Protein backbone atom coordinates (compact mmCIF):
# COMPACT_ATOMS: atom_id res chain seq x y z
CA UNK A 1 0.00 0.00 0.00
CA UNK A 2 1.25 3.43 -0.89
CA UNK A 3 1.18 6.55 1.23
CA UNK A 4 -2.46 7.74 1.39
CA UNK A 5 -1.51 11.34 2.22
CA UNK A 6 -1.82 12.57 -1.37
CA UNK A 7 -5.22 10.91 -1.71
CA UNK A 8 -6.59 12.62 1.37
CA UNK A 9 -5.08 15.90 0.29
CA UNK A 10 -6.72 15.63 -3.15
CA UNK A 11 -10.11 14.86 -1.61
CA UNK A 12 -9.76 17.81 0.73
CA UNK A 13 -8.75 20.15 -2.08
CA UNK A 14 -11.62 18.96 -4.26
CA UNK A 15 -14.16 19.34 -1.46
CA UNK A 16 -13.08 22.86 -0.51
CA UNK A 17 -12.95 23.91 -4.15
CA UNK A 18 -16.38 22.48 -4.93
CA UNK A 19 -18.05 24.24 -2.02
CA UNK A 20 -16.43 27.60 -2.75
CA UNK A 21 -17.12 27.33 -6.46
CA UNK A 22 -20.76 26.43 -5.89
CA UNK A 23 -21.24 29.60 -3.89
CA UNK A 24 -19.53 31.65 -6.59
CA UNK A 25 -21.10 29.93 -9.55
CA UNK A 26 -24.79 29.87 -8.59
CA UNK A 27 -25.35 33.59 -9.08
CA UNK A 28 -22.97 33.76 -12.02
CA UNK A 29 -24.66 30.86 -13.84
CA UNK A 30 -28.12 32.28 -13.14
CA UNK A 31 -27.07 35.64 -14.50
CA UNK A 32 -25.62 34.03 -17.60
CA UNK A 33 -28.75 31.93 -18.09
CA UNK A 34 -31.13 34.86 -17.90
CA UNK A 35 -29.31 37.99 -19.04
CA UNK A 36 -29.92 39.56 -22.39
CA UNK A 37 -26.88 41.81 -22.02
CA UNK A 38 -24.67 42.19 -25.05
CA UNK A 39 -21.77 41.32 -22.76
CA UNK A 40 -23.11 37.85 -22.21
CA UNK A 41 -20.90 36.22 -24.88
CA UNK A 42 -17.88 37.98 -23.40
CA UNK A 43 -18.75 36.79 -19.91
CA UNK A 44 -19.35 33.28 -21.21
CA UNK A 45 -16.03 33.29 -23.02
CA UNK A 46 -14.14 34.48 -19.94
CA UNK A 47 -15.87 31.82 -17.86
CA UNK A 48 -14.94 29.14 -20.35
CA UNK A 49 -11.31 30.24 -20.69
CA UNK A 50 -9.89 27.73 -18.18
CA UNK A 51 -11.36 24.97 -20.33
CA UNK A 52 -9.37 26.01 -23.32
CA UNK A 53 -6.20 27.27 -21.74
CA UNK A 54 -3.46 24.73 -21.08
CA UNK A 55 -3.03 24.26 -17.34
CA UNK A 56 0.51 25.45 -17.79
CA UNK A 57 -0.73 28.84 -18.99
CA UNK A 58 -2.91 29.09 -15.92
CA UNK A 59 -0.03 27.82 -13.77
CA UNK A 60 2.34 30.33 -15.30
CA UNK A 61 0.04 33.29 -14.70
CA UNK A 62 -0.72 32.11 -11.18
CA UNK A 63 2.99 31.73 -10.49
CA UNK A 64 3.37 35.36 -11.50
CA UNK A 65 0.26 36.64 -9.76
CA UNK A 66 0.55 34.78 -6.49
CA UNK A 67 4.25 35.06 -5.80
CA UNK A 68 5.10 36.90 -2.62
CA UNK A 69 6.50 39.87 -4.55
CA UNK A 70 3.27 40.38 -6.48
CA UNK A 71 0.41 42.40 -4.90
CA UNK A 72 -1.96 39.48 -4.27
CA UNK A 73 0.80 37.21 -3.01
CA UNK A 74 2.21 39.93 -0.80
CA UNK A 75 -1.21 40.72 0.62
CA UNK A 76 -1.74 37.07 1.45
CA UNK A 77 1.66 36.89 3.15
CA UNK A 78 0.83 39.96 5.23
CA UNK A 79 -2.54 38.46 6.20
CA UNK A 80 -1.55 34.89 6.97
CA UNK A 81 2.21 34.88 7.21
CA UNK A 82 2.30 32.12 4.64
CA UNK A 83 2.87 32.28 0.90
CA UNK A 84 0.10 31.48 -1.54
CA UNK A 85 2.34 29.60 -3.92
CA UNK A 86 3.44 26.25 -2.55
CA UNK A 87 0.54 26.20 -0.10
CA UNK A 88 -2.86 24.54 0.16
CA UNK A 89 -4.56 27.93 -0.08
CA UNK A 90 -2.73 28.57 -3.33
CA UNK A 91 -3.94 25.27 -4.72
CA UNK A 92 -7.51 26.21 -3.79
CA UNK A 93 -7.13 29.47 -5.70
CA UNK A 94 -5.68 27.59 -8.65
CA UNK A 95 -8.41 24.96 -8.54
CA UNK A 96 -11.16 27.56 -8.42
CA UNK A 97 -9.80 29.17 -11.54
CA UNK A 98 -9.10 25.84 -13.20
CA UNK A 99 -12.49 24.24 -12.42
CA UNK A 100 -14.70 27.34 -12.81
CA UNK A 101 -16.29 26.29 -16.11
CA UNK A 102 -17.01 22.82 -14.79
CA UNK A 103 -19.27 24.36 -12.20
CA UNK A 104 -20.73 27.24 -14.19
CA UNK A 105 -21.53 25.55 -17.46
CA UNK A 106 -23.67 22.62 -16.27
CA UNK A 107 -25.51 25.00 -13.93
CA UNK A 108 -26.11 27.48 -16.72
CA UNK A 109 -27.39 24.72 -19.03
CA UNK A 110 -29.65 23.40 -16.32
CA UNK A 111 -31.06 26.86 -15.65
CA UNK A 112 -31.58 27.46 -19.34
CA UNK A 113 -33.36 24.15 -19.69
CA UNK A 114 -35.74 25.09 -16.93
CA UNK A 115 -36.48 28.12 -19.06
CA UNK A 116 -38.52 31.15 -18.23
CA UNK A 117 -41.85 29.28 -18.17
CA UNK A 118 -41.65 28.06 -14.58
CA UNK A 119 -40.16 31.37 -13.42
CA UNK A 120 -43.04 33.28 -14.95
CA UNK A 121 -45.50 30.83 -13.45
CA UNK A 122 -43.88 31.29 -10.04
CA UNK A 123 -44.02 35.08 -10.36
CA UNK A 124 -47.74 34.78 -11.03
CA UNK A 125 -48.01 32.79 -7.80
CA UNK A 126 -46.46 35.71 -5.89
CA UNK A 127 -42.96 34.28 -5.73
CA UNK A 128 -40.13 36.80 -5.98
CA UNK A 129 -37.22 36.14 -8.33
CA UNK A 130 -35.14 34.75 -5.48
CA UNK A 131 -38.03 32.64 -4.20
CA UNK A 132 -38.59 31.27 -7.70
CA UNK A 133 -34.88 30.59 -8.07
CA UNK A 134 -34.63 28.69 -4.78
CA UNK A 135 -37.93 26.84 -4.89
CA UNK A 136 -38.56 26.27 -8.56
CA UNK A 137 -35.41 26.68 -10.62
CA UNK A 138 -32.97 24.98 -8.25
CA UNK A 139 -35.14 21.91 -7.57
CA UNK A 140 -35.79 21.56 -11.28
CA UNK A 141 -32.04 21.88 -11.91
CA UNK A 142 -31.02 19.21 -9.41
CA UNK A 143 -29.56 17.01 -12.07
CA UNK A 144 -27.47 19.83 -13.45
CA UNK A 145 -26.44 20.86 -9.96
CA UNK A 146 -25.29 17.38 -9.05
CA UNK A 147 -23.53 17.07 -12.36
CA UNK A 148 -21.82 20.40 -11.83
CA UNK A 149 -20.60 19.45 -8.36
CA UNK A 150 -19.40 16.02 -9.42
CA UNK A 151 -17.62 17.40 -12.45
CA UNK A 152 -15.99 20.09 -10.38
CA UNK A 153 -14.98 17.70 -7.65
CA UNK A 154 -13.67 15.19 -10.12
CA UNK A 155 -11.89 17.68 -12.29
CA UNK A 156 -10.18 19.12 -9.24
CA UNK A 157 -9.11 15.65 -8.13
CA UNK A 158 -7.61 15.16 -11.56
CA UNK A 159 -5.81 18.49 -11.59
CA UNK A 160 -2.14 18.10 -12.41
CA UNK A 161 -0.54 20.80 -14.51
CA UNK A 162 -1.49 23.76 -12.35
CA UNK A 163 -0.49 21.96 -9.17
CA UNK A 164 2.79 20.91 -10.73
CA UNK A 165 3.60 24.53 -11.39
CA UNK A 166 2.39 26.29 -8.26
CA UNK A 167 2.36 23.48 -5.71
CA UNK A 168 6.00 22.72 -5.06
CA UNK A 169 5.28 19.06 -4.31
CA UNK A 170 5.22 19.40 -0.53
CA UNK A 171 4.04 16.24 1.26
CA UNK A 172 0.72 16.73 3.06
CA UNK A 173 0.45 20.25 1.76
CA UNK A 174 0.56 20.27 -1.98
CA UNK A 175 1.56 16.77 -3.01
CA UNK A 176 -1.78 15.71 -4.42
CA UNK A 177 -2.47 12.30 -5.82
CA UNK A 178 -1.88 13.16 -9.47
CA UNK A 179 1.57 14.46 -8.63
CA UNK A 180 2.34 11.41 -6.52
CA UNK A 181 1.39 9.10 -9.37
CA UNK A 182 3.50 11.11 -11.80
CA UNK A 183 6.49 10.80 -9.54
CA UNK A 184 6.00 7.12 -8.97
CA UNK A 185 5.85 6.52 -12.68
CA UNK A 186 8.89 8.65 -13.43
CA UNK A 187 10.75 6.89 -10.65
CA UNK A 188 9.50 3.64 -12.12
CA UNK A 189 8.01 2.67 -8.77
CA UNK A 190 5.32 0.98 -10.80
CA UNK A 191 3.95 -1.00 -7.86
CA UNK A 192 3.05 2.18 -6.00
CA UNK A 193 1.80 3.80 -9.18
CA UNK A 194 -0.41 0.78 -9.76
CA UNK A 195 -1.83 0.91 -6.25
CA UNK A 196 -2.66 4.58 -6.44
CA UNK A 197 -3.95 4.45 -10.01
CA UNK A 198 -6.14 1.43 -9.36
CA UNK A 199 -7.45 3.10 -6.23
CA UNK A 200 -8.29 6.24 -8.18
CA UNK A 201 -9.91 4.18 -10.89
CA UNK A 202 -12.13 2.27 -8.50
CA UNK A 203 -13.00 5.41 -6.54
CA UNK A 204 -13.79 7.34 -9.68
CA UNK A 205 -15.87 4.55 -11.09
CA UNK A 206 -17.89 4.14 -7.91
CA UNK A 207 -18.53 7.86 -7.58
CA UNK A 208 -19.67 8.04 -11.16
CA UNK A 209 -21.86 4.95 -10.94
CA UNK A 210 -23.51 6.47 -7.89
CA UNK A 211 -24.14 9.72 -9.74
CA UNK A 212 -25.55 8.07 -12.81
CA UNK A 213 -27.75 5.69 -10.88
CA UNK A 214 -28.98 8.67 -8.88
CA UNK A 215 -29.53 10.69 -12.03
CA UNK A 216 -31.50 7.85 -13.51
CA UNK A 217 -33.93 7.54 -10.68
CA UNK A 218 -34.06 11.26 -10.24
CA UNK A 219 -35.00 11.66 -13.85
CA UNK A 220 -37.73 9.09 -13.66
CA UNK A 221 -39.27 10.86 -10.72
CA UNK A 222 -39.58 14.17 -12.53
CA UNK A 223 -40.80 12.72 -15.77
Amino acid at each position, binding site marked *: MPDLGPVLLSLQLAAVTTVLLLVLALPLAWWLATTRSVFKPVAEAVTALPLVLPPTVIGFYLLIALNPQAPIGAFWVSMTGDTLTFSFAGLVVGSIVYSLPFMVQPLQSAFENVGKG*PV*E*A*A*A*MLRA*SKLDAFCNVVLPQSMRGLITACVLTFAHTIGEFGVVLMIGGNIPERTRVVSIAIFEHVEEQSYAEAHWLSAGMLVFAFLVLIAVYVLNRSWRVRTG
Partner: protein
Amino acid sequence: MSGPANSLTLSLLLERGDFRLRLDETIALDGVTAVFGRSGSGKTSLLRAIAGLDRPAQGRIVFGDDVWFDTDTRQSMKPHRRGAGYLFQDARLFGHLSVAGNLAFADKRSGHQGDAIAFEDVVAATGLSDLLSRNIGGLSGGERQRVALARTLLARPRLLLLDEPLTGLDRAAKREIMPYLRDVPARFGIPALFVSHDIEEVTALANRILVLDGGRVAAHGALGDVLQTLDLGPLLADGTTGSLIEATVTGHDAALGVTQLDLAGTPLSLPLDERLETGRTVRLFVDASDVALATARPEGISIRNILPGQIKAIEKNASRPYADIVVTIGKGQLRARITRASLAELALTEGMEVFALVKTMSFAD
Protein backbone atom coordinates in the same frame (compact mmCIF):
# COMPACT_ATOMS: atom_id res chain seq x y z
CA MET B 1 -68.21 52.32 -10.90
CA SER B 2 -65.47 52.47 -13.48
CA GLY B 3 -63.71 55.48 -12.06
CA PRO B 4 -59.94 55.34 -12.23
CA ALA B 5 -59.81 53.96 -8.68
CA ASN B 6 -61.69 50.89 -9.74
CA SER B 7 -60.36 50.29 -13.19
CA LEU B 8 -57.46 48.97 -15.17
CA THR B 9 -56.05 51.51 -17.57
CA LEU B 10 -54.31 50.02 -20.55
CA SER B 11 -52.65 52.43 -22.86
CA LEU B 12 -49.92 50.62 -24.65
CA LEU B 13 -47.99 49.69 -27.71
CA LEU B 14 -46.38 46.28 -27.83
CA GLU B 15 -44.27 44.83 -30.60
CA ARG B 16 -43.60 41.16 -31.20
CA GLY B 17 -41.78 40.65 -34.48
CA ASP B 18 -44.09 41.92 -37.23
CA PHE B 19 -47.04 42.02 -34.90
CA ARG B 20 -48.15 45.22 -33.15
CA LEU B 21 -50.64 45.43 -30.35
CA ARG B 22 -52.02 48.92 -29.82
CA LEU B 23 -54.55 49.61 -27.11
CA ASP B 24 -56.02 52.55 -25.27
CA GLU B 25 -58.77 51.24 -23.03
CA THR B 26 -59.98 51.44 -19.47
CA ILE B 27 -61.35 48.20 -18.14
CA ALA B 28 -63.77 48.22 -15.21
CA LEU B 29 -62.40 46.20 -12.33
CA ASP B 30 -65.44 44.17 -11.43
CA GLY B 31 -66.71 40.96 -12.85
CA VAL B 32 -65.27 39.27 -15.87
CA THR B 33 -64.09 40.99 -19.02
CA ALA B 34 -63.69 38.63 -21.94
CA VAL B 35 -60.79 39.22 -24.27
CA PHE B 36 -62.10 37.82 -27.46
CA GLY B 37 -60.55 37.40 -30.88
CA ARG B 38 -59.27 34.89 -33.30
CA SER B 39 -55.94 33.13 -33.12
CA GLY B 40 -53.04 35.55 -33.45
CA SER B 41 -55.10 38.62 -32.64
CA GLY B 42 -52.90 39.44 -29.65
CA LYS B 43 -54.87 38.13 -26.69
CA THR B 44 -51.95 36.37 -25.05
CA SER B 45 -49.65 39.29 -25.78
CA LEU B 46 -52.04 41.64 -23.98
CA LEU B 47 -52.32 39.42 -20.89
CA ARG B 48 -48.55 39.02 -20.67
CA ALA B 49 -48.07 42.77 -20.78
CA ILE B 50 -50.60 43.27 -17.98
CA ALA B 51 -48.95 40.57 -15.87
CA GLY B 52 -45.57 42.22 -16.37
CA LEU B 53 -44.11 39.24 -18.20
CA ASP B 54 -43.46 41.33 -21.30
CA ARG B 55 -42.75 45.03 -21.42
CA PRO B 56 -44.67 47.18 -23.80
CA ALA B 57 -42.52 49.40 -26.00
CA GLN B 58 -44.51 52.31 -24.70
CA GLY B 59 -47.48 53.13 -22.53
CA ARG B 60 -49.10 52.92 -19.12
CA ILE B 61 -50.78 50.15 -17.16
CA VAL B 62 -52.59 51.38 -14.06
CA PHE B 63 -54.47 49.01 -11.79
CA GLY B 64 -56.76 50.93 -9.47
CA ASP B 65 -54.43 53.36 -7.71
CA ASP B 66 -51.29 51.38 -8.49
CA VAL B 67 -49.14 52.27 -11.44
CA TRP B 68 -47.97 48.90 -12.72
CA PHE B 69 -46.12 50.25 -15.69
CA ASP B 70 -45.34 53.62 -17.16
CA THR B 71 -42.72 54.35 -19.78
CA ASP B 72 -42.89 58.07 -19.05
CA THR B 73 -41.95 57.75 -15.40
CA ARG B 74 -39.94 54.57 -16.09
CA GLN B 75 -41.97 52.67 -13.54
CA SER B 76 -42.46 48.93 -13.83
CA MET B 77 -43.77 47.00 -10.87
CA LYS B 78 -42.31 43.52 -10.52
CA PRO B 79 -44.68 40.83 -11.82
CA HIS B 80 -44.91 39.01 -8.49
CA ARG B 81 -45.94 42.19 -6.69
CA ARG B 82 -48.78 43.00 -9.05
CA GLY B 83 -50.87 40.20 -7.59
CA ALA B 84 -52.12 39.05 -10.95
CA GLY B 85 -52.96 35.38 -11.20
CA TYR B 86 -52.15 34.06 -14.65
CA LEU B 87 -53.51 30.83 -15.97
CA PHE B 88 -51.26 29.93 -18.87
CA GLN B 89 -52.42 28.27 -22.06
CA ASP B 90 -49.82 25.54 -21.38
CA ALA B 91 -50.47 24.88 -17.66
CA ARG B 92 -46.80 25.34 -16.58
CA LEU B 93 -47.01 23.05 -13.62
CA PHE B 94 -43.90 22.51 -11.53
CA GLY B 95 -42.63 19.07 -12.49
CA HIS B 96 -40.58 18.66 -9.33
CA LEU B 97 -43.64 18.91 -7.10
CA SER B 98 -46.67 16.65 -6.79
CA VAL B 99 -50.14 17.97 -7.52
CA ALA B 100 -50.51 18.84 -3.84
CA GLY B 101 -47.07 20.50 -3.91
CA ASN B 102 -48.10 22.69 -6.81
CA LEU B 103 -51.20 23.79 -4.97
CA ALA B 104 -49.33 24.36 -1.72
CA PHE B 105 -46.77 26.51 -3.56
CA ALA B 106 -49.46 29.02 -4.42
CA ASP B 107 -51.36 28.61 -1.17
CA LYS B 108 -48.31 29.37 0.98
CA ARG B 109 -47.30 32.49 -0.89
CA SER B 110 -50.80 33.93 -0.99
CA GLY B 111 -50.82 34.40 2.78
CA HIS B 112 -54.30 32.74 2.66
CA GLN B 113 -55.72 36.22 2.22
CA GLY B 114 -58.95 36.30 4.11
CA ASP B 115 -59.22 32.55 3.57
CA ALA B 116 -62.23 33.38 1.43
CA ILE B 117 -60.99 30.82 -1.05
CA ALA B 118 -60.57 27.62 0.95
CA PHE B 119 -58.03 25.06 -0.19
CA GLU B 120 -60.57 22.26 0.07
CA ASP B 121 -63.20 24.11 -1.95
CA VAL B 122 -60.79 24.69 -4.78
CA VAL B 123 -59.63 21.08 -4.76
CA ALA B 124 -63.20 19.83 -4.80
CA ALA B 125 -64.35 22.22 -7.51
CA THR B 126 -61.52 21.24 -9.80
CA GLY B 127 -62.01 17.53 -9.09
CA LEU B 128 -58.48 17.06 -7.85
CA SER B 129 -59.12 15.21 -4.58
CA ASP B 130 -57.97 11.88 -6.00
CA LEU B 131 -55.01 13.35 -7.81
CA LEU B 132 -53.38 15.23 -4.93
CA SER B 133 -50.56 12.77 -4.40
CA ARG B 134 -49.92 12.22 -8.12
CA ASN B 135 -46.82 13.38 -9.93
CA ILE B 136 -47.20 15.94 -12.67
CA GLY B 137 -45.57 13.65 -15.21
CA GLY B 138 -48.41 11.17 -15.48
CA LEU B 139 -51.30 13.62 -15.78
CA SER B 140 -53.34 13.82 -18.93
CA GLY B 141 -53.86 17.14 -20.68
CA GLY B 142 -57.14 17.82 -19.00
CA GLU B 143 -55.86 16.87 -15.58
CA ARG B 144 -52.92 19.24 -15.95
CA GLN B 145 -55.12 22.16 -16.73
CA ARG B 146 -57.37 21.52 -13.76
CA VAL B 147 -54.32 21.58 -11.50
CA ALA B 148 -53.15 24.83 -13.07
CA LEU B 149 -56.54 26.38 -12.53
CA ALA B 150 -56.66 25.35 -8.90
CA ARG B 151 -53.13 26.62 -8.36
CA THR B 152 -53.92 30.03 -9.79
CA LEU B 153 -57.01 30.38 -7.61
CA LEU B 154 -54.99 29.47 -4.53
CA ALA B 155 -52.61 32.34 -5.17
CA ARG B 156 -55.62 34.56 -4.21
CA PRO B 157 -54.93 37.08 -6.96
CA ARG B 158 -56.23 40.67 -7.18
CA LEU B 159 -56.81 40.20 -10.87
CA LEU B 160 -57.29 36.94 -12.72
CA LEU B 161 -55.74 36.61 -16.14
CA LEU B 162 -57.23 33.52 -17.69
CA ASP B 163 -55.65 32.58 -21.00
CA GLU B 164 -58.03 30.05 -22.55
CA PRO B 165 -58.35 28.08 -19.32
CA LEU B 166 -60.96 25.77 -20.81
CA THR B 167 -59.09 24.85 -23.96
CA GLY B 168 -58.14 21.19 -23.83
CA LEU B 169 -60.76 20.29 -21.25
CA ASP B 170 -63.59 18.00 -22.22
CA ARG B 171 -67.11 19.22 -21.73
CA ALA B 172 -67.55 17.36 -18.49
CA ALA B 173 -64.53 19.05 -16.99
CA LYS B 174 -65.55 22.38 -18.48
CA ARG B 175 -68.96 22.12 -16.91
CA GLU B 176 -67.39 21.27 -13.60
CA ILE B 177 -65.16 24.31 -13.64
CA MET B 178 -67.39 26.81 -15.41
CA PRO B 179 -69.62 27.60 -12.41
CA TYR B 180 -66.53 28.03 -10.27
CA LEU B 181 -64.92 30.35 -12.76
CA ARG B 182 -68.19 32.22 -12.99
CA ASP B 183 -68.52 32.56 -9.22
CA VAL B 184 -64.96 33.46 -8.26
CA PRO B 185 -64.94 37.09 -9.38
CA ALA B 186 -68.28 37.89 -7.83
CA ARG B 187 -67.83 35.88 -4.65
CA PHE B 188 -64.41 37.24 -3.80
CA GLY B 189 -64.51 40.48 -5.69
CA ILE B 190 -61.67 39.43 -7.96
CA PRO B 191 -61.98 40.96 -11.37
CA ALA B 192 -60.89 38.79 -14.26
CA LEU B 193 -59.75 39.05 -17.84
CA PHE B 194 -60.81 35.92 -19.63
CA VAL B 195 -59.22 35.10 -22.98
CA SER B 196 -61.26 32.88 -25.21
CA HIS B 197 -62.21 32.33 -28.78
CA ASP B 198 -65.38 30.48 -27.81
CA ILE B 199 -68.41 32.76 -27.75
CA GLU B 200 -70.35 30.33 -25.56
CA GLU B 201 -67.65 30.37 -22.92
CA VAL B 202 -67.54 34.13 -23.16
CA THR B 203 -71.25 34.59 -22.76
CA ALA B 204 -71.39 32.12 -19.92
CA LEU B 205 -68.62 33.82 -18.00
CA ALA B 206 -68.19 37.46 -18.92
CA ASN B 207 -70.01 40.71 -18.23
CA ARG B 208 -67.93 42.74 -20.58
CA ILE B 209 -66.08 41.95 -23.73
CA LEU B 210 -63.01 43.41 -25.40
CA VAL B 211 -62.75 42.23 -28.97
CA LEU B 212 -59.30 42.21 -30.52
CA ASP B 213 -58.65 41.97 -34.20
CA GLY B 214 -55.12 42.06 -35.56
CA GLY B 215 -53.76 43.80 -32.48
CA ARG B 216 -56.47 46.49 -32.47
CA VAL B 217 -59.60 46.82 -30.34
CA ALA B 218 -62.61 46.07 -32.51
CA ALA B 219 -65.15 46.53 -29.74
CA HIS B 220 -65.28 47.00 -25.98
CA GLY B 221 -68.24 47.22 -23.70
CA ALA B 222 -70.97 45.36 -21.86
CA LEU B 223 -71.44 41.91 -23.28
CA GLY B 224 -75.08 42.52 -24.19
CA ASP B 225 -74.33 45.78 -25.97
CA VAL B 226 -71.44 44.42 -27.95
CA LEU B 227 -73.27 41.26 -28.95
CA GLN B 228 -76.32 43.30 -29.87
CA THR B 229 -74.56 45.90 -31.93
CA LEU B 230 -71.60 44.12 -33.32
CA ASP B 231 -72.15 41.25 -35.64
CA LEU B 232 -69.28 39.12 -34.55
CA GLY B 233 -69.83 36.80 -37.49
CA PRO B 234 -67.63 38.32 -40.16
CA LEU B 235 -64.99 39.33 -37.66
CA LEU B 236 -64.64 35.89 -36.22
CA ALA B 237 -65.71 33.88 -39.28
CA ASP B 238 -67.62 32.20 -36.55
CA GLY B 239 -71.25 32.76 -37.45
CA THR B 240 -72.36 32.99 -33.87
CA THR B 241 -74.19 35.94 -32.54
CA GLY B 242 -76.80 36.31 -29.87
CA SER B 243 -78.46 38.51 -27.32
CA LEU B 244 -78.66 38.99 -23.64
CA ILE B 245 -82.05 39.50 -22.09
CA GLU B 246 -82.99 40.04 -18.49
CA ALA B 247 -85.65 38.06 -16.70
CA THR B 248 -86.82 37.63 -13.10
CA VAL B 249 -86.83 34.29 -11.31
CA THR B 250 -90.38 33.48 -10.23
CA GLY B 251 -89.94 29.99 -8.86
CA HIS B 252 -88.69 26.46 -9.25
CA ASP B 253 -90.56 23.33 -10.21
CA ALA B 254 -88.36 20.49 -9.06
CA ALA B 255 -90.86 17.88 -10.26
CA LEU B 256 -90.62 19.09 -13.84
CA GLY B 257 -86.99 20.07 -13.40
CA VAL B 258 -87.44 23.68 -14.42
CA THR B 259 -86.77 27.13 -13.10
CA GLN B 260 -89.54 29.56 -13.96
CA LEU B 261 -88.90 33.10 -14.96
CA ASP B 262 -90.82 36.12 -16.04
CA LEU B 263 -89.77 38.16 -19.03
CA ALA B 264 -91.88 41.25 -19.50
CA GLY B 265 -95.01 39.38 -18.53
CA THR B 266 -94.26 36.22 -20.45
CA PRO B 267 -93.45 33.10 -18.44
CA LEU B 268 -90.24 31.29 -19.35
CA SER B 269 -88.87 27.97 -18.19
CA LEU B 270 -85.24 26.95 -18.12
CA PRO B 271 -83.40 23.89 -16.80
CA LEU B 272 -83.60 23.86 -13.01
CA ASP B 273 -80.97 25.86 -11.14
CA GLU B 274 -82.09 26.05 -7.53
CA ARG B 275 -79.23 28.34 -6.54
CA LEU B 276 -81.13 31.22 -8.10
CA GLU B 277 -83.34 32.84 -5.50
CA THR B 278 -86.84 33.84 -6.43
CA GLY B 279 -87.03 37.52 -7.31
CA ARG B 280 -83.49 37.68 -8.59
CA THR B 281 -82.86 39.22 -11.97
CA VAL B 282 -80.75 37.03 -14.23
CA ARG B 283 -79.31 37.53 -17.65
CA LEU B 284 -79.97 34.96 -20.31
CA PHE B 285 -77.88 34.43 -23.37
CA VAL B 286 -79.83 33.47 -26.43
CA ASP B 287 -77.94 32.38 -29.50
CA ALA B 288 -79.55 34.06 -32.51
CA SER B 289 -79.59 30.70 -34.29
CA ASP B 290 -81.73 29.25 -31.54
CA VAL B 291 -84.52 31.77 -32.04
CA ALA B 292 -87.36 31.09 -34.46
CA LEU B 293 -90.07 33.59 -35.33
CA ALA B 294 -93.75 33.02 -35.94
CA THR B 295 -96.40 35.40 -37.18
CA ALA B 296 -99.08 33.76 -35.01
CA ARG B 297 -98.73 32.06 -31.67
CA PRO B 298 -98.13 28.39 -32.50
CA GLU B 299 -100.21 25.87 -30.59
CA GLY B 300 -99.44 22.28 -29.67
CA ILE B 301 -95.69 22.75 -29.91
CA SER B 302 -93.01 21.53 -27.53
CA ILE B 303 -91.26 24.90 -27.50
CA ARG B 304 -92.59 26.51 -24.35
CA ASN B 305 -90.77 29.81 -24.41
CA ILE B 306 -92.81 31.91 -26.79
CA LEU B 307 -92.21 35.63 -26.44
CA PRO B 308 -94.42 38.22 -28.07
CA GLY B 309 -92.56 41.21 -29.48
CA GLN B 310 -92.15 43.63 -32.29
CA ILE B 311 -89.64 43.66 -35.11
CA LYS B 312 -87.24 46.53 -34.63
CA ALA B 313 -84.82 45.91 -37.45
CA ILE B 314 -84.11 43.48 -40.22
CA GLU B 315 -80.46 43.06 -41.14
CA LYS B 316 -79.79 41.21 -44.33
CA ASN B 317 -76.95 40.94 -46.74
CA ALA B 318 -77.09 39.40 -50.18
CA SER B 319 -73.88 37.48 -49.55
CA ARG B 320 -75.31 35.59 -46.59
CA PRO B 321 -78.09 33.03 -46.62
CA TYR B 322 -79.59 34.32 -43.41
CA ALA B 323 -81.04 37.50 -42.04
CA ASP B 324 -80.86 38.80 -38.50
CA ILE B 325 -84.11 40.07 -37.08
CA VAL B 326 -83.93 42.25 -34.01
CA VAL B 327 -87.11 41.89 -31.97
CA THR B 328 -88.01 44.19 -29.11
CA ILE B 329 -89.28 42.21 -26.15
CA GLY B 330 -90.27 44.24 -23.14
CA LYS B 331 -87.30 46.52 -22.48
CA GLY B 332 -84.85 44.12 -24.12
CA GLN B 333 -84.02 42.95 -27.54
CA LEU B 334 -83.67 39.52 -29.00
CA ARG B 335 -81.77 38.74 -32.13
CA ALA B 336 -83.13 35.97 -34.34
CA ARG B 337 -81.20 34.51 -37.23
CA ILE B 338 -83.52 33.01 -39.84
CA THR B 339 -82.98 31.97 -43.42
CA ARG B 340 -83.73 34.47 -46.17
CA ALA B 341 -86.18 31.92 -47.53
CA SER B 342 -88.18 32.11 -44.28
CA LEU B 343 -87.93 35.87 -44.28
CA ALA B 344 -89.50 35.99 -47.71
CA GLU B 345 -92.16 33.44 -46.89
CA LEU B 346 -93.24 35.12 -43.69
CA ALA B 347 -93.08 38.55 -45.30
CA LEU B 348 -91.62 40.07 -42.18
CA THR B 349 -91.38 43.85 -42.01
CA GLU B 350 -90.14 46.30 -39.45
CA GLY B 351 -92.76 47.15 -36.84
CA MET B 352 -94.60 43.84 -37.29
CA GLU B 353 -95.77 41.96 -34.19
CA VAL B 354 -94.16 38.52 -34.00
CA PHE B 355 -93.60 35.67 -31.58
CA ALA B 356 -90.07 34.62 -30.80
CA LEU B 357 -89.68 30.92 -30.08
CA VAL B 358 -86.65 30.05 -27.97
CA LYS B 359 -85.85 26.41 -27.42
CA THR B 360 -82.44 26.77 -25.82
CA MET B 361 -81.06 29.50 -23.68
CA SER B 362 -78.61 29.65 -20.86
CA PHE B 363 -78.02 31.69 -17.79
CA ALA B 364 -75.32 34.15 -18.68
CA ASP B 365 -74.21 34.89 -15.14
